[in-house]
């Protein structure tokens, strides 16, 4: 799994890095920390041309460096899959029956990178995710600023809506007690189920799986899929609750159930939620809710 953590200089990004480190410890994912230096001049810094130029010892590189140290501090040195290089002697079989002790350099088991891109944060995050074929983008924000980043940009909302992969908008205001998971049972991927499994374990949270009913009731095939999902989690010692919601009351349902700390929405191509939840509603949910939001694709 490849995780891209988009960060800025606010405290919520530090929290996000910690959350990803815990997730990475369980999944041994390839992780990239990405900071984006905006070309736009922040309003409070005036129009001095010097503030526009990016410096390697500027605040963003320093913050990124601190995040890297913080991320790696979650791993014991000997268990860390991201340890860059390790030199040492190792017996290597040169040919059948002939071994030689050679001085070798082992590379890290998994990649961990810290990057800075210059430009529009949304575009750069999406470009990096596309280039690196990222599976999950993680970014933080807090509701006190309407989930906006620098220059009042709605970066998390736009990334969540426009990314081709899954996106987790992590907030620290609310402890994750329960993960409410709205899945499209026809198309949900094994990888998404596994990601939910990881998050449940990570937060020691409970899980609710939501099935969508049309006006005439829940369909048999949806029930079968729900049963399969239920058994999948039972085999992993997780006992999810099942809840049925009608598509007509989707807005109310999401507004009410977002109280539990993490709302996961399956919004893959042609999914029920992609049709039923326009981008404006996803933006509103991310902006207004104190809970984290996971968009699964």
């Amino acid at each position, binding site marked *: 799994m490849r995780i891209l953590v988009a960060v800025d200089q606010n405290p919520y990004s530090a929290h996000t890095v910690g959350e990803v480190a815990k997730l990475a410890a369980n999944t041994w994912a390839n992780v990239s920390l990405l900071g984006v230096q905006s070309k736009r001049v922040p309003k409070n810094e005036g129009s001095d041309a010097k503030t526009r130029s990016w410096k390697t010892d500027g605040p963003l590189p320093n913050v990124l460096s601190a995040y890297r140290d913080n991320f790696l501090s979650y791993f014991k040195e000997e268990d860390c899959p991201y340890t860059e290089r390790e030199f040492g002697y190792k017996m290597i079989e040169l040919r059948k029956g002939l071994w030689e002790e050679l001085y070798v350099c082992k590379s890290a088991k998994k990649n961990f990178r810290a990057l800075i891109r210059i430009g529009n944060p949304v575009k750069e995050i999406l470009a990096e995710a596309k280039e690196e074929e990222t599976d999950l983008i993680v970014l933080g924000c807090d509701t006190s600023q309407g989930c906006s980043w620098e220059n009042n940009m709605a970066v998390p909302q736009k990334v969540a809506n426009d990314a081709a992969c899954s996106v987790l908008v992590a907030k620290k205001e609310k402890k994750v007690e329960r993960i409410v998971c709205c899945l499209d049972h026809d198309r949900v991927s094994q990888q998404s189920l596994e990601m939910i499994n990881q998050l449940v374990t990570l937060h020691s949270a409970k899980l609710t799986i939501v099935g969508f009913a049309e006006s005439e009731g829940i369909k048999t095939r949806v029930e079968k899929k729900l049963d399969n999902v239920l058994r999948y989690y039972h085999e992993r010692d997780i006992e999810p609750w*099942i809840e*049925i919601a009608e598509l007509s*009351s989707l807005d109310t349902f999401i507004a009410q159930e977002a109280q539990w700390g993490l709302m996961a929405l399956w919004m893959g191509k042609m999914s029920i939620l992609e049709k039923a939840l326009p981008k404006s509603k996803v933006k509103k949910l991310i902006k207004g809710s104190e809970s984290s939001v996971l968009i699964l694709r």
Partner: protein
Amino acid sequence: MIKALVSLNMDLASSIALRYSCRLAEIIGMKLHTMHVEEVDKEGYSPGTGWVRSTWEKGLLQTSQEEILQLINTEKSSCPSLDAPIIRIGEREEELLHEIDDGSYDLFIEGVLHSFNAVNFYKKIQSKLYRYASCPIIIVKNLVDLNSIALLLGDDTDVRPLITSILKIFTKSELTVDLIHYTFQKFKGSVFREKVDDSKTPGRENGDKVLGKAEMMLSEMGCYPKDSWVIQDSPKKIADFLGGYGLVAAYIPSHSGMKNRLIELLSQVPSATLLCRR
């Protein structure tokens, strides 16, 4: 030994109910009987008379039996005491009521998926089966850990019917029992949730009285509740709190109207719910 009837269909709700019943049977030493009623539309009920009808019914029974056996066999490894199901053709509620009466069951169990829309739950509560069943009913909404039971008490009149039913079913089990006195928050009124032993918020005197009476009835039979709570909040908030219990039990008189807020509360409880109606 407690004798329970579990209603089964080929659906997810029944599968969950069966698994929950097996867990419960193990804890309280209960004998499970399963039953499926094959409902046929009135138009299609009688394709003929005599031999034609009899053959048609036999075929229908056999198909239903095979399907339900498949459901039971899936659970057989964790619930070996399950016998062959009772299969009937007819009107579901009528057939189940007959069986409950004829078989003198102590408990009726069925699965109903937990729904954000409470309409189905209201319909269940108002149904003939739920109004006339001679024994308590457990509605299983989710497969939850049977660690503890919450007894919901609204006023003095709830105590005797609820405690009597509970003692009959759970007297030999070692499940933890909590007593909960609930009142609903009036418009913008105060909310509280506290244990009886903690500081007393004004207005909870009636709760203390009701809980005291229930506690006394239980202790006379050697059953001692772990905690006693007094809660005043909205139905949704109380229901969220009750989600932590493996079973939530309440007394709803058979004549209760649709406007009963306890029904609104119970419709939102995600755990299994025991309804005592007599």
